[in-house]
């Protein structure tokens, strides 16, 4: 189950940012490591919300910096 969430999160990141999936490690930062700009991070949050049918409030979204942050949040709230 948790692996499934991690894989789905990584797939969204790869597709949205157009980066090599090998670069999308759990510790990778969207902005610093994967070349996302601030608007990309907003769109990623929107994509996560859609994929997992959850709502990510703005204050929580601000704390999602790395791939692991996103996986953790979704695991806790789905």
């Amino acid at each position, binding site marked *: 189950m948790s692996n499934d969430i991690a894989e789905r999160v990584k797939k969204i990141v790869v597709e949205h940012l157009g980066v090599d999936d090998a670069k999308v490690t759990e510790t990778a930062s969207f902005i610093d490591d994967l070349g996302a700009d601030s608007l990309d991070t907003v769109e990623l949050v*929107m994509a996560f919300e859609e994929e997992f049918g959850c709502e990510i409030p703005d204050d929580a979204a601000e704390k999602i910096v790395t791939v692991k942050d996103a996986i953790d949040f979704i695991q806790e709230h789905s």
Partner: protein
Amino acid sequence: MFDLTGKIALVTGASGGIGGAIARRLHGQGATVVLSGTRAEALEALAGELGERTQVMTCNLGDPAATEALVGQVEAEAGQLDILINNAGLTRDGLAMRMKDEDWQQVLDVNLTAAFRLTRASLKGMMKRRWGRIIGISSIVGVTGNPGQANYAASKAGLIGMTKSLAQEVASRGITVNCVAPGMIETAMTDALNDQQRERILTAIPMQRLGKSEEIASGVVYLASEEAAYVTGQTLHVNGGMAMI
């Protein structure tokens, strides 16, 4: 040219002279038009005149919750929102020294803050679809100023600044954000002028006439169209040469 078939537009202040003309022109280019305003009767009359591809959604833009909900209502009932026209506006004129806080606040709330709220709410869907048009109806006085209109001029200048910032934020997602700035247009707002005021104004307009609401609508249709895809962050002045900025 300027075909808007399949697009869904929301026009605020659609019961007014300029708003009604904008709604008519967008509809004429093939768009589905959601008419918003506070006067249900006038909106229904316009919807009846336009026929198919129209919906009426009354909304008091002074009410933050109702304003926030409007875009969701459009998306739920019309399917999506492609073109947002922030046209609604009101005046509470008076010399600054005598201007009450509530006259300042009400004008800023409706003319500027509501436009921001509607814009923020509409961006999500536009970003997903990689297409959107946000057009604010500013005013010549937002750039030139006008005695007795500190509140109105501030709100209209605010729209221009907001437009330039937003345009930069979302340009990479296929969304353009622009303003049209009318000069003196024949509407209920200018009908209130007396002959002497009118005469004085005409001497300042090289075209020597007031503008028509349809002439504002033409600028809006252009900015809403595919043909204007590379135009963003701009203010199109439609004022008969009254100010050349």
